[in-house]
């Protein structure tokens, strides 16, 4: 019967063309919008992962409890051994130590006394041995002047700070604060570059130094505030990360030792879990919206088709075909049209999503003054769900639209058929 119906659909295009176009269009939009939204959310999450959270982050249990205060005295120690263990146990990840610190950035005058000063939010990364870290934080592209630290004692400072206090490349600035032991921190750096990430929260008083310099200045020999882990393919995979975090915590983290390391997944930090769930909810809402909207359109299309095929159904009833059988063939037809439309829409949608994934749309001009951590080029992301997600609105809308329209068949009275058909 399916072969028979398929022939009917292909030969009588007036019966199938419009529904196939409507279904294809709906499926196309569902796929492109889903890929687009997933892409934007993924980019934002990647940005947070690269700057602050990693795909996973290892901290001491005590540090994790007070992470907003950046308590250096609760930092990780013996990190060489810990990183070695992490590399042995989880070789499919890149493990990088970082130090976050705060303090006061002081600019001296010719007598070595304070000329200007402002609060500093410091970050120490491995500039000298890990070029991936520089790339991950997009430092080269964000440099306004100068270059990254090449030797100990060099620092990149915020472009805004340098501009406000007239600090030039090659000049000295002193970082004042507290070390890990609570001693006074005085460390003078030579400014080798100025940076602007384009995000207020990162640009305000930022200072970037090599991790070896920070360890020395902060009395943190072989220590760091955190060790970030990134999956080698660079894509956050919840299942992989869940398995790694569970295994690490059961092996190394001890509830009775506040200085034992504890691994935190990306979604457990900075409310990113809510963000991921919001992305999934929005995709779900969008599909529901398309199903409802397309059902209404296809219901009307089905009604028009029903009217157009009024005589045909009448003849089939007059010939003794069961009402239920006619209704059933109509639903089968709708399923076939839904499948054809969904396949066409999925192919076109995936093509467009691939284009947006590779090329993206550049919104840098529009986001120039935005202070949130946002990407400038918005790209789509193709993910496995996209290969079948379009069939949900495509099939449900087509079948439900025709099912509603098909009720008219049951209202036909056999006794009046010949009169209706003017036989």
């Amino acid at each position, binding site marked *: 019967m399916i072969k028979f119906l398929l022939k009917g659909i292909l030969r009588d295009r007036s019966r199938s063309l419009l529904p196939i176009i409507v279904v294809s269009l709906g499926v196309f939009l569902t796929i492109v919008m889903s890929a687009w939204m997933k892409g934007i959310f993924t980019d934002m999450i990647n940005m947070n992962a690269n700057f602050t959270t990693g795909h996973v982050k290892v901290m001491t249990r005590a540090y994790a409890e007070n992470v907003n205060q950046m308590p250096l005295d609760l930092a990780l120690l013996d990190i060489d051994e810990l990183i070695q263990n992490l590399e042995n146990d989880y070789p499919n990840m890149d493990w990088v130590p970082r130090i976050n610190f705060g303090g006061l950035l002081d600019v001296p005058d010719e007598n070595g006394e304070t000329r200007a000063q402002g*609060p500093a939010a410091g970050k120490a990364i491995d500039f000298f041995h890990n070029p991936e870290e520089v790339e991950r934080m997009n430092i080269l592209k964000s440099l306004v002047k100068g270059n990254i630290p090449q030797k100990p004692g060099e620092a990149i400072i915020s472009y805004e700070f340098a501009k406000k206090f007239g600090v030039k490349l090659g000049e000295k600035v002193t970082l004042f604060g507290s070390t890990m*032991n609570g*001693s006074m921190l*005085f*460390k003078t750096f030579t400014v080798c570059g100025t940076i602007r990430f384009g995000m207020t929260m990162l640009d305000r008083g930022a200072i970037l130094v090599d991790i070896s310099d920070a360890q020395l200045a902060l009395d943190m020999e072989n220590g760091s505030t955190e060790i970030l882990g990134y999956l080698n393919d660079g894509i956050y995979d919840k299942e992989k990360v869940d398995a790694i975090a569970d295994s690490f915590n059961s092996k190394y983290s001890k509830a009775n030792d506040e200085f034992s390391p504890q691994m935190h997944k990306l979604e457990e930090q900075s409310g990113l879990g809510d963000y991921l769930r919001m992305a999934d909810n929005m995709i779900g809402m969008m599909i529901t919206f398309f199903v409802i909207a397309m059902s209404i359109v296809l219901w009307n299309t089905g009604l028009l088709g029903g009217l157009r095929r009024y005589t045909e159904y009448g003849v089939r009833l007059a010939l003794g075909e069961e009402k239920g059988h006619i209704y059933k063939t109509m639903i089968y037809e709708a399923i076939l049209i839904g499948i054809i439309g969904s396949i066409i829409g999925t192919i076109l949608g995936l093509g467009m999503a691939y284009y947006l994934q590779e090329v993206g749309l550049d919104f840098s001009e529009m986001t120039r003054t935005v202070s949130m951590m946002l990407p400038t080029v918005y790209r789509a992301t193709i993910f496995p769900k996209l290969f079948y997600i379009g069939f949900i609105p495509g099939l449900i809308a087509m079948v439900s639209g025709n099912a509603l329209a098909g009720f008219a068949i049951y209202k036909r009275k056999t006794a009046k058929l010949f009169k209706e058909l003017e036989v």
Partner: protein
Amino acid sequence: MEKIKYIAILLMITSAAYAQNANQILEKVDKNMSSKNRIVESEMIIHGKRNSRTITSLSYSVGDKKSFTEYLSPARERGTKMLKLENKLWIYSPSTDRIIQISGHMLRQSLMGSDLSYEDMMDDRKLTEVYTATVIGQESIDGRKCYILELKAKVVDIAYHTRKMWIDTERYIPLKEDLFAKSGKLLKQTTFSNVKKVQGRWFPTAMVYKDMLKQGDGTEFIVTGIRFNQEIQEYIFTKAVLKQ
């Protein structure tokens, strides 16, 4: 009606007497704790989460306007100097040969990881100058009878809006103190002990400060030597001394 009038008048007289009494108590405390000038040798034992450190220092101060402190040990802090003139504070670091002026919110930061802030170290004003006191009760601490005084700030530029002090009724020195923010939140707690008579006045030589917003077991401040009203050379309170 007459009765109510009498009770009200009686209450007013009693509270006025109590208030006067409280301010007199505070004056006596100031007499013990404040001086024209002083030279203090001290040890500060900071109990952190991971370890404890002892820092020794020598301080000179004149009234509440000038003070100079030189840190003597450990090696990491040796040679670090702090100079306070009026409401300005400079710190000298020998490792960088820099003099940094501390101001604004940085004054509220911890001093060398202790439970004391720079602001705590700087504010040496007499209690009677900045607070109005009320006696709110009596209690014993370690077998010594104490007045409990509630102090409310009468100036704006003050770190702690309210203080609750337990004052020894015989020696007029504080044995315990709770420091509160304007919101009523308890910020710090201090206990005073090892009270000695120095140059005719009582003075506590061991103090334990606890920052209630910070983890750790607090900071012990032990006075190993104190001399009041000495001849202190004026040049000590100049920025030139910092680099010497």
